[in-house]
């Protein structure tokens, strides 16, 4: 850590920017009392869980965004001839600790959300919350890796990937009850983003699923995370085996 002051400024800056992001939601609540049946505190809970998961995944796997460039300029070739898994090299390259700013903000919003929501605490609920934070991070990591695999094949697809990571984050910041059932079904069974916060939050808050899906889904986040990670691993391997490199 050579530039301490710069690091602190960047981290605080990023935390502030993301805080303004939540302020927009808070302002919205000054005109309404509930959004899709959820109070501001409960939305903060959803927001914090999703923000933490994306923040942690971004810290670990956010560099996969650069894969397209690495494929095009040939530096991915150099990674492939070194004796360390390329995903590890990508994650370690320019490891940006300043990204903890996003996590800090998410933890703050989550803490406030937990306090402001009316949660009837029990041991299983604490376990579900902790398991969800880990599972959610794994799910977003899987999405990053999936996007990475796609970039290895296509040479460039950063925007497609962003649609799922940052787009997924924005989508899950709000209660899914405001979306049509098709959206909810696809983020449950296709890209399992609903497991990052929505289902576990229903359990924490003792809310009945507005879409009437089985309540077992509310404990299923770790399962969804394992499946997503497995799918990402398969896709990554397939992507690297089909890698074409560039001319010359």
């Amino acid at each position: 850590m050579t530039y301490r002051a710069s690091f602190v400024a960047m981290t605080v800056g990023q935390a502030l920017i993301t805080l303004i992001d939540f302020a927009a939601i808070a302002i919205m609540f000054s005109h309404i009392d509930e959004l899709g049946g959820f109070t501001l505190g409960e939305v903060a809970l959803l927001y914090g869980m999703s923000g933490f998961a994306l923040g942690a995944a971004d810290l670990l796997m956010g560099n996969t965004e650069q894969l397209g460039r690495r494929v095009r300029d040939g530096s991915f070739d150099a990674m492939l001839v070194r004796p360390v898994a390329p995903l590890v090299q990508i994650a370690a390259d320019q490891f940006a600790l300043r990204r903890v700013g996003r996590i800090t903000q998410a933890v703050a919003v989550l803490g406030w959300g937990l306090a402001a929501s009316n949660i009837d605490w029990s041991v299983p609920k604490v376990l579900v919350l902790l398991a969800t934070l880990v599972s959610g991070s794994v799910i977003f990591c899987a999405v990053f890796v999936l996007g990475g695999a796609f970039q290895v094949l296509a040479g460039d697809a950063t925007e497609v990937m962003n649609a799922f990571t940052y787009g997924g984050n924005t989508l899950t910041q709000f209660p899914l009850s405001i979306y049509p059932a098709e959206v909810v079904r696809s983020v449950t069974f296709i890209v399992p983003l609903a497991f990052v916060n929505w289902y576990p939050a229903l359990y924490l808050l003792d809310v009945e699923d507005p879409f009437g899906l089985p309540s077992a889904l509310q404990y299923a986040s770790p399962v969804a995370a394992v499946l997503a990670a497995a799918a990402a691993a398969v896709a990554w391997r397939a992507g690297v085996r089909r890698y074409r490199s560039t001319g010359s």
Partner: protein
Amino acid sequence: MAVIEVTDLRRTFVVRSKGGRLRRERREVVAVDGVSFGIDAGEVVGFIGPNGAGKSTTIKMLTGILVPTSGRLHVDGLDPSRRRTELARRIGVVFGHRSGLWWDLPLRDSFALLARIYDVPRDRYRTNLATLVELLDLAPLLDVPVRQLSLGQRMRGDIAAALLHDPPILYLDEPTIGLDLISKARLRDFLRDLNAERGTTIMLTTHDLVDIEHICRTVMVIDAGRLVFDGDLTALQRVGGATRTVVVDLETQLEPVRVPGTTVTRVEGPRQWLSFPAHSSAAPIVSALAAAYDVVDLSIQEPAIEDVIRLLYAAG
């Protein structure tokens, strides 16, 4: 014993091009078309061929970057694409067009990072680094960020980086591309010594026949994805019947000069072109010329790879 064994290696690429308004045509391009060869431990092999012949594709399959479409290959007993990371410890790779170094880091830090990646023991790293710094004259460059190095300096840095972990096999993809004559000569000397002292097996691709003449005992010529020659250099020149040319500027305009072992192929005023077999020396021809005529200037043209290959086809 062969450290690199390749049998009937093939690689095709699917290219999609716009066909109609919506339809895209799918076309298969064969980059490497049934290549077989073996390289023994301690050999230095030159891999030549025109652009797009399949040299780089073959090297990329030998390193495990690309998966072959079909065929068998073994490098040091391993299937490169299936055991890529394991193989990585035993090979060094230098791509002439791009650097394996970290753009923003000084050379010293890049080397230290690579030593960590390759798990090079501390003592080993220190001795290797000292040797490479001395042989490649890197001492004044160690604290310069890679992006500020000249092409020749960067290439030396890249070669040092590829050798820090003592790989028994070294691949070089066009290592002399873009280098000036002095840098090329130094690099060739280094590679020859490396092979002689450590017994490193070296496979290099190049466009420069002089590289081959100075370093390689064996030459493989690839064209349109097929291996058209595999043997030693003199055999290549005999098979091809390739010629070198002395271009001489005389004091005055003369009839075609008579020098034993040469034929005059062209006369243009006082300038004449004398061709002679590529495997014989230019020295006696030059001295015979200088003894019998008033020579103002002369230069020697080496046969271009493309010409050698063309002659190779004509002969076969």
